[in-house]
């Protein structure tokens, strides 16, 4: 014991040394990379997370010209100048082409959903004073709109899909359940989003508004979703309550921005000249001679008509020109036939047909045709055919029975259905 007593000074010094090797040293700060924790603590950084959602949506819809492949390219209206489009147009969607495998993978859309859910958390958890009320509303609104749009695409492309929401993660939802959910989010987003977005200087910016969700775009989305479920009245209510004569100056569509990236170019230029075209015969059948829109929308050269790219900096998804069509459809579906005709005539400015003579029986076909003409290039065609129940009439590869089995939807890639108890629908499961 005396040994110990003799060295008490030393022993206490040693004890201090041992205890001083502070446990904080086990936390190594990142010097050249970013950790999620503690990152989103300012408005510009929170905006980055919102932008991340758009970036992922852009990848989901532009990689392999997906927005076209899910739409006009599959319906056979437009040709995309890539080899695998032949297989898409001939409905050979399970071919072993790597591009088709990617197109049949739903992963990118779920990336958007995850981004949106992260943004909702980030916005909610932002400290007092970091976000202004305007920013809070816009970021939350954009996240809800992105999520609503991603789910709406999933339901239209694949029909039933799993939920990626915290409360029912992995639950198998029917197409109707998915869209019903999407309507809830879009409805809230519609309330939150402004007509025009402010740029960093606090000035209303039309350029910014055109590539981000805004009140016009989210209202169009909401109307589309209501119409998908057959709720004409709800769509009509949304449209009439939102768009009034006083808002006409504030309208803005929504498209995906294709900007110069600081690191790399987009590997595919979705809107390079000549990429989207149709054979002259098809073109003439859709837009007969005399249709005033022919020259404005297409360049005719030789045997084909090439879609004119109005603005190569963005891919339009929810253009303003759809609003009249949506009014027409909502009015028609909610038993307001005369009003529907008025909206259609307004929308179809430049058509050779006289739509004033339409009957309730012929209205549907006329509306579908006008949607085909006006919405060309936005990727809506296939969804229109499904919504109008006209897939077998326009796609010869499918019979009514095929469509009942799920032919109009896309098959699922192996990675989409791995380890989640999901399986291919009855049509695409054919060996």
């Amino acid at each position, binding site marked *: 014991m005396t040994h110990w007593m003799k060295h008490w000074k030393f022993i206490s010094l040693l004890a201090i040394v041992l205890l001083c090797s502070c446990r904080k040293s086990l936390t190594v700060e990142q010097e050249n*990379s970013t950790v999620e924790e503690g990152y989103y603590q300012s408005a510009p950084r929170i905006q980055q997370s919102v932008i991340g959602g758009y*970036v992922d949506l852009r990848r989901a819809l532009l990689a392999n010209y997906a927005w076209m492949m899910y739409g006009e390219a599959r319906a056979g209206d437009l040709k995309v100048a890539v080899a695998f489009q032949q297989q898409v147009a001939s409905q050979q969607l399970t071919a072993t082409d790597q591009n088709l495998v990617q197109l049949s993978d739903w992963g990118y859309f779920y990336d958007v959903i995850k981004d949106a859910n992260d943004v909702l958390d980030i916005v909610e958890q932002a400290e007092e004073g970091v976000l202004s009320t305007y920013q809070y509303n816009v970021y939350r609104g954009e996240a809800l709109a992105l999520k609503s749009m991603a789910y709406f695409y999933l339901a239209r492309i694949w029909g039933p899909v799993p939920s990626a929401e915290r409360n029912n993660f992995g639950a198998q939802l029917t197409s109707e359940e998915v869209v019903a959910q999407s309507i809830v989010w879009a409805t809230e987003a519609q309330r939150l989003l402004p007509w025009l977005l402010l740029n960093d200087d606090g000035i209303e910016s039309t350029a910014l508004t055109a590539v981000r969700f805004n009140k016009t775009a989210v209202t169009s989305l909401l109307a589309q979703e209501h119409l998908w479920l057959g709720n004409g009245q709800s769509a009509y209510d949304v449209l009439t309550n939102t768009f009034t004569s006083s808002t006409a100056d504030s309208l803005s569509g929504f498209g995906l921005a294709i900007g110069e990236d600081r690191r790399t170019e987009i590997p595919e230029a979705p809107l390079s000249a000549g990429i989207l075209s149709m054979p002259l015969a098809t073109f003439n059948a859709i837009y007969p001679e005399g249709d005033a829109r022919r020259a404005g929308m297409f360049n005719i050269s030789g045997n084909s008509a090439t879609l004119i790219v109005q603005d190569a900096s963005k891919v339009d998804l929810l253009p303003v020109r759809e609003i009249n069509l949506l009014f027409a459809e909502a009015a028609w579906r909610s038993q307001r036939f005369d009003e529907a005709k008025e909206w259609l005539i307004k929308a179809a400015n430049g058509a050779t047909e006289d739509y004033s003579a339409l009957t309730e029986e012929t209205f549907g076909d006329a509306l579908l045709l006008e949607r085909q003409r006006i919405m060309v290039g936005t990727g809506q065609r296939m969804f229109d055919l499904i919504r109008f129940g006209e897939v077998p009439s326009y796609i010869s590869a499918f019979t009514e029975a095929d469509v009942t089995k799920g032919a109009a939807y896309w098959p699922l890639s192996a990675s989409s259905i791995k380890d989640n108890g999901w399986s291919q629908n009855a049509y695409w499961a054919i060996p």
Partner: protein
Amino acid sequence: MKGVCLLFAVLMLSVAGIAQSVMTGKISDSDGKPVVGASVGIKGKNTGATTNAAGSFRLRVSVGDTLTFSSVGFESREIVFRKAADLSIKLTQENKILSDVVVTGYKSQVKQEITGSVTSIKMDKITEGQAAESFGSLLQGRVAGVNVQLNSGEPGATPAIIIRGLAAVSRGDASAISEPLYVIDGIPIISRMSSEFAVTSTNVLADLNPSDIEDVVVLKDASAAAIYGSRAANGVILITTKKGKRGKPQINLNIRTGVNFVPQLRDVAGGTKEREQVQRLYDLYAPYGLSMPAMYTDVTNPFYNNSSDWQGYLYNTSVTQDYNASIRGAGDFGQYSISMGYMDSKGILFNTGFKRYSLMASTSFNALKNKLIINNTLAVSRTDQGRNPDGLSSGYSSLLPLPDNPLVKGAEVYQPGNISNLNDRVRFSSDATLNLARNLSYKASLSLEYLRVMQDTYSESRRTLRATNLSATGENQNLLFQNTVTYTPKFGNGHSLSVLLGQSMEKTEAKTTSVNSVSASPTLSQSVNWPQGNSIGSSNYGASTLMSYFSRLDYNFQQKYLLGASIRTDGSSKFGKANRWGVFPSISAGWNFYKEDIFANAGWLTNGKIRGSYGLSGTTWDNNYLALGIMDGGSLDQYNSLIEIAYGGISGFTPTWYDGFKNDNLTWVKTNMANIGVDLTLFKGKVEVIFDAYEKLTKGLLLSTALPTTSGYNEVYRNAADVLNRGLEFTVNTNMRFGSDFTWNTNLNFAYNKNSVIRLPDGNADIIKTSTSGQDFGSIIRVGAPLNGFFFYESQGIYQAEDQVPVDPKTGKKLLGLQGKTLQVGDRNFRDQDGDYRIDVSDRVYSGDPNPKWNGGWTNDFTYKQFSLNLVATFVIGRDIVNTALLDRLKLGKAFAGSGSLPNFDKYSIWEKSGDNARYPALNPWSDATQVINYDSEYIEDGSYFKIRSATLSYTFNKKIMQRLPFERMRIYCTADNLVTFQKYSGPDAELVTIDGFDMSGGYPMRRMLLFGVSISL
């Protein structure tokens, strides 16, 4: 012994006489033979003497002085000088087995008291006669259960050292190796760099000069290693460097030069034979209208009858030089040791080689009457490895002229350029031990290690007139501070206790910077410019900290009953806060049963111990920040889509683009290891037998596992795989003496290890190893099977007749070959495992195990008078390897003619016509679906081998035989390295394969070396 006691009694009884006198004395061994070169000193004084050839010495001493006597191989003695009389001192030879002190974790232990599985190798003798780049390759075949595999013969290459079986998994290539922890003089060192910071390809451990190593201790089981906690699961290798010994300064010089001979290279048909073979292939298979290139048909072509020996041109005999010098000494003040080394090993392949410059200085000071001991060590080294850029090939067609042919002189046909890999290491450590009281000491040590690695690459292409420059630098540093308190009381009737308490704190940092450029024309400069468009510069930084508290307790009763326990807790910054700390306990016990009364009369039993241990140790992984959830601004995804992160003029940054998401639950890989062993020494040390049996279960190896795509992530890292290694180890040492002049010592060790995978993620799904770019490695990890097994198509020979191709009875269609080929006579007959009448990926099966089942070594030392002969052999039994070297050469592309040399087809059994009892299918270069495919089980061969690694013949001169020798001792020797290999394998060298069993000999064959050297002690 009796004589010594008598002498001591005489000294004690005598009365002090003259104050100081010159005394003469003689030192002899127990047989009465003089001990030459023994040191005699006086404690506390600076005088000393050395015995001459007759064993005599002269020294001025005073009564009351304490004389010290020491000599290598003998136990040191101290005698108080009482009476002025001539002394006759007998020194007893060291009983190595019983008195050996072995360095174990944070302390030293008498060998007899060790309860773990520990093997100690004295490096002195080994390094004196062998020149090696790193000590790793010298350990080959020396320690049971340690598999040292040299994957390449290239100077500076890194050998794989695996202790007690592989326990590492990855989805990619076989670079995941369960690497041991290396500790030099008590300080864990940087032994490798993670792939992101590995700038050079040189063996990081090659900068430690093997000649500076005193001994190497391998801690194999958990009880020995667990004190090193989180890094000990793969075993620990403790290296002790040479220190000065008491006596007069020892100056050593070791000068050697070796000649490296080119071993057997690839078989090349050459000249006319190659032309005939090409002709034959054209005759047999060329499609209509395709004729041979003019090179083969134009007799006026000056090279028509050429037969260039490309291998002979590029591989040449080379020279290795290795020089070591040291001065060491010790006294009451402490010790000093300074050593220098220079090695220049030229490679046998053009433009390759390895150089090492090393300097090490170590000093110890005793102060406060030996209460305070301060050690300082500074080690500085540089290694310089030269390599060729990838373009250099020794496989050109033998019809092409060699560059020294007068007709083409000046035209460089191979890609000029070079790669220089430079590693500089500075290691400084300082420690102070304070002996606080009897049996109680405190030690604090601080060490700083700095390792700079640099690579400069310059290569140019004469054809495209483009030159590539790459310059990369990496800096690694390690700062360690550790404190230990040791208390070793002895009490009662033979109770002996040793308690160690310690703490350590470590920070490791790594940084790289690299720039490269491709310039449009060869600038012939090695500076990296910044051209427009295609320059890439990058940098990276990573850091981790480790904090540990540890304790070890050893207790024994009369050295008969031994008990040991250790516990360590490690906290690492690499882990999530939830699982930051890991606790690694171990317990062990031993029984020196030979001390029991019943063995009292068993003269044949010199030593006998049974020991057992169980413990837990850990490993971590390279990625410093895996648990944190790193945000990454976009990368290629599984479809190679690149997401760009700017949108509408604003940059996006979301947690989606992680390396996997933040996972607070990531934790230590833990290894449970149980070991039982027996140590026996028989017949007074003539025979020593060591046996160990172990079970090592490694749990929670890190693997990425797939997530449902609906989660928004592709994969996440989890502690997901378990691997079990079970094995037996045997060591037999014999020390025989025949007459007084001839001795024969042997060491035979062999180990059996059985490896199997116990658990895998995703419901034990098979892992077929593929690279990130989708390249299939042909290996599989499957539950119940050994790691990295071959996943191949099962060959059933060759179709000799059309009707041998199976027909589907349902459809009437014939079996389709790979890539939908219609099978023909001469094609490979693969078994259709799933019976779908189509050979495809689903027909691949587990077809071989690349993990060695048995491996070991056999060392023989013969000495006859001054001659000695040392033979080292190593062997591996029960291992499958793939003859990739042959496979790659039989795989002929459509443009095979002129593109490379051909092997001599006559030597291989290749199918040409019906009835050929061939091993390899028809070599049709124009076939749409080639039949020579990578994963054909026919190329799997038995990889067992027995290799005589080295043979050293030496002769030692000393003053006894040569009175006029100007040195104390001189030894001349000749060593033959990589002497001969006995193998079944049809390729060049069964040893040069990757850990997952693919032949690497195409890379760099292992030279044979004949080394001549002289070692001088002044």
